[in-house]
């Protein structure tokens, strides 16, 4: 991480978000400067990275994430993603990122129509995302899940392609919700945008049963620091993107 200044992370808040304080607390505990940003904000240029936290954005009306996708801040989230800055969607945040087409696929109601609330084991199956770059392939992490719509779905061919190109960073050891391929997390092609149903921010203290989320958030912040250093070195501010 940068020696000069802490990594800055925007934690986007929609009406109905409810995990934003957990995210700020966890990121701050790892040395970042994490700030809540209301969904009407139009710029996230002051931040090295973005977290879209869990909850029920806009009441989850219509479909999870369907209305949040049109919140003013989402243009800025898309810009950050395009510029290569790390963007992380947790739980409802993952649903928002799929609705915004920043990530492929969709999240359906859990198989068996059961709300799941548990601590589950996830295996790191790819380290080519900002979330898992600091983890070990095959590493097993205990992470809390807490969702009704976490059943990851896409076309079978698309899933095979995601798996083959290292875009499935985490997989459930025992599939809790019917997700295709037991997918727990998905990344975009360049690995800087990641969505996952488990809550790493709630696994950062022994008080809550696991500290396994730290390796993921640490990795995310490390990537943000790297991106920030690159931008600082570029003569015209941030690189124009890829």
């Amino acid at each position, binding site marked *: 991480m940068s020696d000069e200044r802490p990594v800055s992370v925007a934690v986007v808040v929609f009406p109905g978000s409810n995990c934003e304080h957990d995210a700020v607390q966890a990121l701050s505990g790892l040395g970042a400067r994490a700030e809540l940003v209301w969904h009407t904000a139009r710029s996230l240029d002051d931040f090295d990275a973005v977290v879209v936290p869990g909850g029920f954005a806009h009441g989850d009306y219509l479909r999870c994430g*369907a209305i949040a996708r049109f919140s003013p801040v989402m243009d800025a989230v898309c810009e950050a993603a395009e510029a290569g800055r790390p963007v992380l969607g947790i739980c409802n945040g993952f649903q928002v990122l799929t609705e915004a087409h920043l990530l492929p*696929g969709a999240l359906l109601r859990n*198989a068996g129509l059961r709300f799941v609330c548990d601590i589950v084991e996830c295996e790191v199956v790819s380290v080519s995302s900002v979330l898992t770059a600091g983890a070990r392939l095959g590493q097993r992490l205990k992470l809390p899940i807490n969702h009704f719509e976490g059943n990851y779905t896409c076309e079978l061919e698309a899933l095979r392609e995601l798996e083959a190109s290292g875009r499935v960073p985490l997989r459930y050891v025992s599939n809790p919700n019917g997700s295709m391929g037991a997918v727990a997390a998905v990344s975009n092609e360049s690995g800087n945008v990641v969505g996952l149903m488990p809550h790493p921010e709630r696994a950062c203290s022994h008080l809550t049963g696991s500290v396994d989320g730290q390796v993921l958030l640490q990795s995310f912040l490390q990537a943000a620091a790297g991106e920030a250093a690159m931008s600082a070195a570029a003569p015209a501010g941030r690189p124009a993107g890829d």
Partner: protein
Amino acid sequence: MKFAVVVEVSALEGISDPEAATIERALPLLGFDRVSGLRAGRIFHFVVDAGDVAEARSVADDLSHRLLANPVIQRADVSVQPAEVSV
């Protein structure tokens, strides 16, 4: 001119629809043992102000595919009719 639009959104074929599956499983218990192919969905009604039916349909299609349905998992069946009563 005003047009009344009805949009039916339901799961794409091949996408799991646990709600429909659960309802269908309950049917034989009620004696409906000759019913199959049940699909669950949602209906949206709205009114579009447009010059003609084609323009109204284009607005309704756009709205349906960008917001009301997620094309990755859902289909939207859109029907457009001249509104009988002014709204």
